[in-house]
């Protein structure tokens, strides 16, 4: 007789699966994770998840939270969207992020800006240095051309359709998929304007640490970079950790580093002055 022939057996069968550990999964509560970020107490953890190759993850984070993305095996591509959790019509603006800071490349000390002149994230640490604000998310058509298919139900999901699913679970939709940032795969701009991909693979363990400056929804998709020319769908797991942290003080060196950045912080502080 089958072990799932009646509801009693089916229940036992289902419950016996609990406690299984696989490489790509969330840990709940996140403080139970075996490898806490250095210096972070278990009870301060907010999120600990390994996002599968081709997978996605999303989380609401409070102001002050630290978010660390780790390219565990050196071949992750973390495409990111970010929204004001309270009013998601405010979202990451890639053009303003570059234009306001007069620079094309992200790194430690840089800010991630919204379309309302506010700071969504501060980049506290970055030992990767290869990131991309230009080329955006892969889509179904691009993946179909390169891999034969790009569907969410297939072996080669694309970042845009991953975003669509993640956003739907917050009541958001295709119109909310804004231009994104890609962490860990770099794009540099040549003198003639050409995009030059830094595809890796890189050493494992590179990470970026962000500080949430507002209450945010952050959405991550871990799919091959749209310019990645390798014929096989090549991407490795992405580790995500988040923990509670203090609000940015007025004497914070990054807050005060540039006149444009300081005014972005003033606009954030004004939003929460209520």
């Amino acid at each position, binding site marked *: 007789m089958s072990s799932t022939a009646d509801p009693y057996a089916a229940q036992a069968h289902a419950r016996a699966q609990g406690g299984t550990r696989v490489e790509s999964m969330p840990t709940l509560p996140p403080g139970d994770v075996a490898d806490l970020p250095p210096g972070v107490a278990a009870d301060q953890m907010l999120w600990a998840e390994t996002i599968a190759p081709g997978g996605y993850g999303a989380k609401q984070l409070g102001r002050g939270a630290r978010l660390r993305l780790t390219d565990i095996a050196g071949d992750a591509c973390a495409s990111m969207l970010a929204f004001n959790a309270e009013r998601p*019509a405010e979202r990451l603006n890639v053009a*303003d992020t570059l234009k306001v800071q007069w620079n094309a490349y992200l790194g430690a000390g840089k800010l991630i800006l919204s379309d309302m002149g506010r700071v969504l994230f501060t980049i506290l640490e970055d030992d990767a240095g290869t990131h991309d604000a230009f080329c955006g998310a892969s889509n179904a058509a691009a993946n179909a051309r390169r891999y034969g298919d790009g569907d969410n139900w297939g072996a080669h999901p694309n970042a845009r359709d991953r975003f669509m699913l993640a956003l739907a679970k917050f009541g958001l939709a295709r119109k909310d998929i804004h231009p994104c940032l890609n962490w860990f795969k770099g794009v540099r701009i040549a003198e003639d304007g050409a995009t030059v991909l830094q595809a890796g693979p890189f050493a494992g363990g590179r990470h970026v640490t962000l500080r949430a400056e507002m209450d945010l929804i952050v959405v991550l998709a871990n799919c091959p970079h749209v310019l990645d020319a390798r014929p096989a769908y090549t991407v490795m797991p992405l580790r995500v950790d988040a923990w509670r942290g203090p609000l940015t003080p007025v004497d914070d060196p990054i807050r005060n580093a540039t006149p*444009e950045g300081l005014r972005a912080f003033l606009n954030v502080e004004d939003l929460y002055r209520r």
Partner: protein
Amino acid sequence: MSDPALQNLPGEVRHDEMVAARAPWDHVLRKGQTLRIVDVEGNQAVDFLLYALADDAERYSAQDTIAAQGNIFLKTGSMLLSNEGRPMATVTATNVAYHDTIGGACSCESNTLRYGHHTKSQHACVENFLQANARHGRGKRDMVSNINWFMNVPVEADGTLGIVDGISSPGLYVDLRAEMDVVVVVSNCPQINNPCNGFNPTPVRMIVAG
């Protein structure tokens, strides 16, 4: 005699309109039609978005366009792609060396960062886009990275970038052929705090042919 702005257009002129300095504009372009944007007085940034007429959740994507052509500059031959990776329009001709699609649109809010809070009440491109889109049920979620025709944003070797003096001049133009039925939404940029309009916003001319 003959109007130089009307030369070498493919097909009959269907629409010919001057867009006032600082104003929004929108127009439906049918597949195969050509839109000529004329920089009448020179160095006037024209902030520009496209939406698919059949489904306005599909819209111009600067990132898809840059990734597909492997270059940040828009030139003759550039294919403007949607966020679904589909061709929306082709740059069939332009006599300006290149155009921008990384600089985005000015907004009241970003102006406070770039120039100071004294600019908060100045008119801005996002205000124009919101107004033009509001007539068609679109809103803030429909704002994405746009094209800035006739605007010059170089990127230096160390990544330094910025809006610098323009490389257009009076009468230069760009021709776009629609590859699907699209809604064109434009802000004739009102910015006065940087050189994108030569510190003097001016009218532009929109000619639809075919």
